[in-house]
């Protein structure tokens, strides 16, 4: 198992090679990429920012959970930080397991958990030159409720 936050482009072929083993029957690779459209707005790039020590710790916890649950510790995840262009990979997850169900389900577990829990943030750049922080629930800051809503006792 290995988790990393990196600033260089993700080498997905290296991740697949890293989890390989003669006992492997199935390998899965998930790649998240910056796409050119978000909720109808044309996107030109994304800044990824992380609370790095906690993000790494959460990623490592997620991999340990997946290993325990799906019976394979041949799992690596790399998440990019910094500014990415459209089509660049923001995350890659490679899993190898003796059987396909474990490889498929561990892959899904890891990506869903990363999206839900890991303190990484993104700011989209739009063609009109504006930028906005967005989140995985589909909201942008402008659309979110005011801070007061969440802290009323």
């Amino acid at each position, binding site marked *: 198992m290995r988790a990393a936050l990196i600033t260089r482009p993700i080498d997905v072929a290296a991740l697949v090679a890293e989890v390989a083993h003669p006992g492997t029957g199935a390998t899965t690779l998930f790649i998240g990429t910056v796409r050119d459209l978000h909720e109808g707005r044309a996107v030109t790039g994304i800044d990824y920012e992380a609370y790095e020590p906690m993000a790494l710790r959460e990623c490592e916890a997620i991999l340990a959970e997946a290993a325990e649950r799906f019976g394979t510790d041949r799992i690596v995840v790399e998440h990019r930080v910094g500014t990415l262009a459209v089509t660049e990979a923001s995350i890659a997850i490679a899993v190898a397991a003796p059987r396909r169900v474990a490889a498929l389900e561990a892959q899904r577990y890891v990506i869903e958990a990363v999206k839900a829990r890991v303190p990484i943030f993104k700011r989209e750049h739009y063609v009109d030159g504006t930028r906005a922080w967005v989140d995985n629930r589909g909201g942008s*800051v402008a659309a979110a409720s005011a*801070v007061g809503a*969440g802290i009323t006792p």
Partner: protein
Amino acid sequence: MTITVLLFASWADALGSRLSVALPEGASVADLLRELAGRAVGRPLPVPMVAINQRYATPGQRISMGDEVAIIPPVAGG
């Protein structure tokens, strides 16, 4: 007590990425969020989580001197 708070994304844009906050001894996460809300009145900030020592904390959890405290806006990894 004075604690140092780390902020990210929209919260860092609004209040800076590092803040010193004076809180009474035994203050909770909810107390900290009330204090920060006072500094961000009228700004459209999303409801954050709080982490203490790099773990998500509950609203009732107490903060101690020397804790690493962070404001975590809605996450967007992946």
